[in-house]
């Protein structure tokens, strides 16, 4: 048994004061990751497949009401409750600090989904494998599988992009440069509310932002140690 170490600890910073709730990240995620397109019925039933959702809250009393938005994706916890409960190692921790999800291994106990306090794991209740009518199937990314029914899936921080960047960097004999790799959501965000980077590198933009006094993490009291930091200014708005 040898300890595998990595120079990367991927993480993200989400500036809530910048988020406009436009939803571009949700669409980008959907397009990048072959996330199944769900009909109204599925969404009504609570079986939508979004890996990233934007929670909207109304804050304040009329007429002083303000909409606040909270993009929630897999928090890639270092002490992830979803991982040890999986009986088949479908959910595991990779050396880069990511919560891996191995679709082929998943038998669908849905235990991870229950134990995820952020409720970011989505389960294929429907058979989505053939959910892309021609010619929509041409938009499917060849880098990732289309998940079959009965399998749990979730945000991977666009691991296929990280892999590609790693390979390129390895070919050139260097580490991935800050900003070189971004998940689809961060890439798309028009207000740059989402910043992705290597938290192990204290000089990276994400790591610098994560040291902001405005930072907090979701459900911090549970001790899950998420890799996703949120930034929010003080003031009357509270989310």
């Amino acid at each position: 048994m040898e300890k595998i170490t990595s120079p990367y600890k991927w993480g993200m910073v989400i500036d809530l004061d910048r988020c406009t709730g436009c939803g571009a990240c949700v669409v980008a995620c959907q397009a990048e990751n072959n996330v199944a397109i769900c009909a109204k019925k599925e969404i009504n039933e609570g079986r939508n497949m979004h890996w990233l959702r934007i929670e909207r809250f109304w804050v304040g009393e009329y007429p002083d009401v303000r909409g606040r938005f909270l993009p929630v994706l897999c928090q890639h916890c270092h002490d992830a409750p979803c991982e040890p409960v999986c009986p088949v190692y479908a959910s595991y921790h990779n050396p880069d600090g990511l919560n891996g999800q191995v679709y082929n291994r998943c038998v669908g106990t849905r235990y991870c989904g229950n134990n995820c306090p952020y409720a970011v794991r989505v389960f294929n209740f429907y058979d989505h494998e053939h959910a892309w009518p021609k010619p929509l199937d041409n938009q499917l990314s060849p880098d990732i599988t289309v998940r079959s029914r009965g399998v749990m899936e979730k945000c991977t921080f666009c691991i296929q992009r990280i892999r590609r960047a790693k390979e390129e960097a390895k070919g050139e004999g260097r580490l991935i440069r800050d900003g070189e790799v971004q998940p689809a959501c961060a890439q798309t965000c028009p207000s740059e509310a989402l910043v992705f980077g290597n938290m192990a590198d204290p000089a990276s933009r994400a790591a610098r932002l994560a040291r902001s006094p405005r930072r907090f993490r979701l459900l911090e009291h549970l001790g899950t140690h998420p890799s996703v930091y949120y930034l929010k200014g003080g003031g009357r708005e509270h989310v």
Partner: protein
Amino acid sequence: MSEHTIHPKSASRMNDEMLSSLKPPTLRWYGLAFLLGAVVAWGIYAFSYMVTTDMSCTGLDRPVMWGVFIVNFVFWIGLSHSGTMVSAILRLSQANWRRPILRAAEAMTVFTVAVGGLFPLIHLGRNWVFFYLIPYPNQRGLWPNFRSPLLWDAMAITTYIIGSSLFLYLGMLPDLAVARDRAHGWRLKLYTVLAMGWRGTAREWVVYQQASTLMAALIIPVAVSVHSIVAWDFAVTVVPGWHSTIFPPYFVIGAIHSGVAAVITLMIVIRKAFHLEEYLTPLHFDNMGKLQLVITLLWSYAYFVEVQTTWYAHEPIEWEVYSFMAHKYTFILLLMLFGNSILPIIVLCFKRLRRSIPVMLAITLLINVGMFIERFLIIVPSLSHKNMPFVWGTYFPSWVELSITAGAFAGFALMYTLFAKTFPMVAMTDVHEYESQKALMLLGRTRVPSLVGKE
């Protein structure tokens, strides 16, 4: 001397009566078996429908990813508890009234744990790759994760099903010899193989009695561990309402609560069906009723403790789960409290009611309805209102889940019925032993029964 020895004729007659369940089945029995078989077939149809289409036919969603299947799992594993526990505890404490009850209780354990053990497999999203959960070397490079409570479940249930089957078989060994000596045809072959050539020599009895005692002592800690592990499935998570240290003992008590009730229900059914009124007397119901009363009090205490600590701490996320449960499921919550706690405590205090068969039937059925609800109320409200209010949801079981549940009940009844037709349903040897030890002794002006036997 002659008064406390068995008269051959009386032993023979007792065998006749106790083996009456093995008589050729009547038309009514076939009717019952067919009916149960039909319900099982419907359950299997519902399951195959779910497997061949997808899981959207269940009521499950995000966040309620576990529903009636897991309720069933906990319920059936709970039922399985008392069978063996009660039997083992009564054996060890040498309670003589236990004797006619043993077999019914032990058989119940084996079949309920068999039914319960199926549910974790039924509920899988990809049932067809269930063998990924089994630790065996394979070319896929897969190995299960023993840090997952589901693997502990798998280990515990395997141990328990093997252990309780052996316990049932061990208790039945001399009875199988009795059945063998009276059987013809295929039954003769079956009992000859299973009786292993038992003759009842003095040496065989010495070894047998020691083995029975040892087995009873071994099965109790296993039973406790099995339901503790089922409780850990919930208690080790970070789900509000589940993450509670009292869960393992509370689940064990709940399991015994429903199990004792089920043993009493089955005693009533067997008594009626096989005309065993002479062997299952009001005394047995009285004693089981007392046991049930104790367990009811324990359960009520555990429930009170669990709710009151949460109420006092008033931690908002946890309290949300409880208030959601009380608002959304008010009726079944009250039904559970009434049927599981209030009514049994009142009724079981009275000797006359404990000795009344219809009252006991009603009470024990109500307890098990209550316990099914209890499991539902543990699992579903916690998942419905987890930490993130944006993804709160609700759950209502679909026809598929209800059909499979009905199939499970019918499947248990069918297995039990088939067992009762194939194997002796009363622990005959234990009853005979008691009869052989009983003697009437002159004490003062009257003769009172006394017992001879080992200290």
